[in-house]
């Protein structure tokens, strides 16, 4: 049975003027680490709020841990651990007081589920009597995770847990999630960082309230239909313009120090073709190679495949 399932969920704001979630359906299997990947404003938080029963969807059904989000919202609340994107614990209470408070409102104690949070809690335990508002970002995040776990939830909903956290803490956080997954907890996590997608078992790519693809990160990368080239020269901006001007080029965008390029006609020797363009335009220090696409490449490709969607500002 699916731990979380959404069926045709639609949510609009401002009396239907703003479409936040557009007919979204996907399922998270029990014990799965599922990622909801999409840029800011894609509708991730709205989906989380619907699943945590604090927001009503306009249309569609959703269940969490086998319970319907509208009818059985009470049952869901005691079975779900939720960590909002914004730090939402009491800043004027200490670590211990926050934990105790959330333990008691769920009718449990810290000791009862200590095993579950031990790994995480031990790291912040030395600061037990420090107020939550005075903690560093990484520690706040650990505390929030502890509070979300304190009642041994069946499903853990994490809304952008790693946004605004340093690289080391992010890495640590994903390690923690993997350990929690081993304990049988279903985890639904959202993130705007594409590099974190590979750490999930399955991901849903979401853009402008619409799900573009749901699959394992590997499958999404494998389904990239064409060869991807990375190109670089001394004047990278000029190269971008030159390549985009060529009618044979399907897409070309900056990606770190390289340009990622796909060709309309997926022929062999594309690298030489690109090199010729660059040389003819007078570029120096040219480097062209074939690369394996990443999630971000897939995301951008999927995004561009939906020309019917009008982008804001255009």
């Amino acid at each position, binding site marked *: 049975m699916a731990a979380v399932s959404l069926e045709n969920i639609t949510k609009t704001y401002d009396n239907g003027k703003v479409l936040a979630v557009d007919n979204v359906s996907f399922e998270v299997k029990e014990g799965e680490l599922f990622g909801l990947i999409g840029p800011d404003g894609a509708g991730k938080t709205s989906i989380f709020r619907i699943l945590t029963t*604090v927001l009503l969807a306009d249309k569609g059904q959703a269940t969490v841990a086998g319970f319907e989000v509208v009818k059985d919202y009470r049952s869901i*609340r005691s079975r779900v651990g*939720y960590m*909002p994107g914004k730090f939402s*614990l009491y800043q004027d209470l200490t670590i211990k007081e926050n934990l105790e*408070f*959330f333990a008691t*409102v*769920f009718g449990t104690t810290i000791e009862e589920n200590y095993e579950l949070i031990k790994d995480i809690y031990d790291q912040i335990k030395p600061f037990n009597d420090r107020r939550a508002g005075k903690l560093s970002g990484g520690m706040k995040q650990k505390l929030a995770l502890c509070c979300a776990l304190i009642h041994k939830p069946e499903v853990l909903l994490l809304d952008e847990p790693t946004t605004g956290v340093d690289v080391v803490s992010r890495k640590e956080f994903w390690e923690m999630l993997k350990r929690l997954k081993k304990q049988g907890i279903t985890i639904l996590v959202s993130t705007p960082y594409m590099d974190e997608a590979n750490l999930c078992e399955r991901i849903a790519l979401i853009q402008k309230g619409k799900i573009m693809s749901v699959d394992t990160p590997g499958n999404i990368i494998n389904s990239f239909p064409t060869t991807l080239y990375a190109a670089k020269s001394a004047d990278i901006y000029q190269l971008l313009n030159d390549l985009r001007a060529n009618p044979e080029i399907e897409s070309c965008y900056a990606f770190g120090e390289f340009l990622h390029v796909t060709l309309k006609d997926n022929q062999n020797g594309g690298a030489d073709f690109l090199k010729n363009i660059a040389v003819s335009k007078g570029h120096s220090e040219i480097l062209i190679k074939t690369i394996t696409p990443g999630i971000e490449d897939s995301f951008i490709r999927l995004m561009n495949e939906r020309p019917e969607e009008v982008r804001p500002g255009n």
Partner: protein
Amino acid sequence: MKVLRFILQKEFRQIFRDKTILAMMFVMPTVQLIVMPLAMNFDVKNVNISLVDHDHSTYSQKLISKIASSGYFRIISSDFSFKEALMHIEKEEADLVVEIPSGFERNLVRDGAQKLAVSVDAINGSKASIGGSYLNTVISDFNAGIDINIRNINKTPSGVIDISFRNWFNPMAEYKYYIVPGILVLLLTMIGGFMTALNIVREKEVGTIEQINVTPIKKWEFILGKLIPFWVIGMTVFSIGLVVCFVVYRIVPEGSIALIYLIASVYLIALLGFGLLISTYSDNQVQAMFVAFFFMMIFMLMSGLFTSIDSMPTWARIISNLTPVTHFIKVVRMIVLKGSGFEEVKTELCYILAFAFVLNGWAIWNYRKTN
């Protein structure tokens, strides 16, 4: 019930942790109760007078010394002409000009009648009218005391009605007895209305309400968890206020203390409901603060704290009756000064009860709707 206990524990912990707010809640009433009644004194004293004496006679001197010795007036200048004296009023140095015409004594003795000019600066209306009437009293007293009239009384006894009056419930007609209970009410209102509104809105603003909403905490538990601590604090502040009244002003309620507490407790519930209502309509603390402040101003100025409700126009009296503060001030004054019992304050209690029901009901209804 167990959950509610933990929520209360958490709320009290948070309140006691914020030292500034805590200090404000207890220092504010004490300081305000001590300072404000002393400053807000409507007894008119120190009316400044400019004198123009064209007569320089025994009688005019007698009149001047009588005015000067009454204690209410301060003679700031003696001028040679009315024009000069009026300059003092224009410069706001004098409130009154008394002009004694030449031949004052002669005409008084010979004709038995004389006119006296009093000019009043009416910018400060209450000071002008009260000062003017004080002066009238002094002059008529002087009039009765001059030799010629004393002699006349023996000749022609006229039918004079002698009025003697007494101030009930406030024998010395001292302003503090009127204003101190009012300020006590005001303080309770500020704490009850402001603190709850701001506290709940803060949870919204910081986002903690988001985390609370996904826990099994029920709405009524959350609301009660917010209201009870402020009810307790409000009652404590009220008690401190009563103690200050006694220690500083020797004001002891004439009526039953239990009755005051009964009504204060109902009143606080009404006000907490008011705070809750504001919080359901505001998204952040600034909004809540402004809305609360708007109503507080109306409450303060229209509740009969400073002015008499009976002298307001009809529409204002209706608004005044629609604010809970009006009724509570009335009741507190009745009990503290008059010693009224339950029978007398029954109607007002019903009003306050109605406010408690309406405000809380509205707030809870609106709170439900938002989620």
